[in-house]
């Protein structure tokens, strides 16, 4: 499982670094590579909570890249790879700290299958979204934004209420 995490971190770093460097943003590329290496070291040394810091940095870096008109496709790939690394890190820690694990193979299989579907769908939909050009004025943008935030909050709140 750890190998998958290392590969994902590598891919996330590569994606973001390419996104920046292909748009000639050379100044930021070493910083992204350094952060990728730091995440790898943290992962190797089992530093607690390091994966979350790595994910936040990569998302912020991707958002920054968007602001600097970096290659969006690569930024998206890097972000999805960082999400996978973050997820797999949690899953591997979960397995390690659980004590005795029964049906470990099935647990891994189910998790990897779901993660693959989620990541692929996310990449596909985001890729499609990148290719669509919609002209929105401020009013519509605010409307859709508020709608998105409210429905997301409602969905989580509803789920939370149900579980209690």
């Amino acid at each position, binding site marked *: 499982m750890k190998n998958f995490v290392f590969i994902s971190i590598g891919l996330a770093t590569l994606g973001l670094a390419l996104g920046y460097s292909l748009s000639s943003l050379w100044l930021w590329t070493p910083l992204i590579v350094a952060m990728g290496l730091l995440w790898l070291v943290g992962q190797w040394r089992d530093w607690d909570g390091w994966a*979350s810091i790595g*994910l*936040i940095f990569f*998302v912020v870096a*991707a*958002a920054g890249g*968007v*602001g600097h008109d970096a290659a*969006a496709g690569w*930024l*998206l790939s890097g*972000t*999805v790879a960082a*999400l996978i690394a973050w*997820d797999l890190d*949690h*899953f591997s820690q*979960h*397995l390690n700290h*659980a*004590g*005795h*694990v*029964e*049906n470990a193979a*099935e*647990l891994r299989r*189910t*998790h990897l299958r*779901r*993660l693959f*579907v*989620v*990541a692929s*769908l*996310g*990449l596909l*939909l*985001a890729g499609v*979204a*990148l290719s*669509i*050009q*919609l002209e*929105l004025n*401020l009013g519509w*943008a*605010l409307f*859709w*934004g508020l709608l*998105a*935030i409210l429905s*997301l909050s409602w*969905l*989580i709140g509803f*789920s*939370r209420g149900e*579980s*209690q």
Partner: protein
Amino acid sequence: MPNLSEKKSGGNLAGFRETQKHLKSLPFYQPRLLLLNLLIYGLVLGGLATLNGTLLALALPFIIYLGAGLLFEPEEPRLKVSRYLSADYAVQDEPVTIKLTITNEGSRLEEVLVEDLTPTPLELLDGQTNLLTTLSPGATVELSYTLRGKRGAYRFSKVLITVSESLGLFQKRRVILAAGQFLVLPEATRLRRVEIRPRRTRVYSGLIPVRQGGPGIEFFGVREYQPGDPLRWINERASARHIQTLFVNEFEQERIADVGLILDARQQSDAYAPEGSLFEHSIQATAALADTFLNEGNRVGLFIYGHYIDWTFPGYGKVQRQRILLALARAEQGDGHVFATLEYLPTRLFPARSQLVLISPLLPADPEMLIKLRARGYRLLVISPDPVTFEQKGLPVNREVELAARLAQLERGLLLNKLRQAGIQVIDWQVETPFQEVAHLAFSRFQ
């Protein structure tokens, strides 16, 4: 220790108020979920604020990840948990196996984490107390582990169940009651012999000399022959001196007695050192004495003084030995105001003029009551583990500590002398020496 019976107890999710109460204190939101939400909100708000669709597109994988978590969120778990213990009680450091059987009576659970909340002083020897698995409807899984522990009563009550979907974003935590308990008995080292001379004995023959002629082993005196006396008892020398009168030897009768063991469980009389509590040594001594007295055929009762009226009614034999060991396994210290002195010792529990054995480090106010007991006709034996030397071992070596220890020893010496002067047998026990050695030396001296 024999495996007397397999204890089984079960619990179900439905209808436990305690479970419901516990539930509210358990966090629903995971830090991961919070982080994911923050990233989504950040990207969406950033995209809207800058009117940049690419940022909104970057949020999509995270939204789908969150959506997948919501979609597969686990249903209310319906699990049945049963607990089996390999023994009801064990001796110190003897392994006991605990087995939990978890059956899923609801829908499929992608991830189930079972955490058995074990009492902390127990040492895990084999296996794990946690189990992570996936459970299909009707499936059963077993969690088994082996523990050992020091003297005490160990109660198992709750099992913490966490179910979640495969991505681990949404969890449901429930506590299921699956009770069980086992006792770790103190070690009872048998002593060679404990010489006691109570003023009153019981009618049955035993090992305690009662200063009365009759059948026995030790020579007691000579008396005139009476019809029915065995011929081998005739004292030929004494009979030869008197014409027409026969004399027979008499032997000292040996009987059993009532023995009341009183264990001092007052918190304020205890002492602590890095190796543990002095109370544990007192318990070891009590177990050894109970075992020895019962083995000699006596009727033994136990009173644990300190927490509440913990009285093991007097009895004989192996069953009584087991009762006393179980009471000692459960023994806890107390700091009740009522038990601050020995004044409220319920002496009516002990037969008049019987033998009492007090196992106590002793407090300055204790001799008064003990002398009163002696005056009432009880025979008293005090086993006093030395708290001063015991506690001194855990303190730094310096002049002040040495001086304080010397003063405390002087006070203790005076206290013990006071008891000895009142005709009370006292054994001053330095606990680094095994109790059987100390007892052997002391009882040979009393003889």
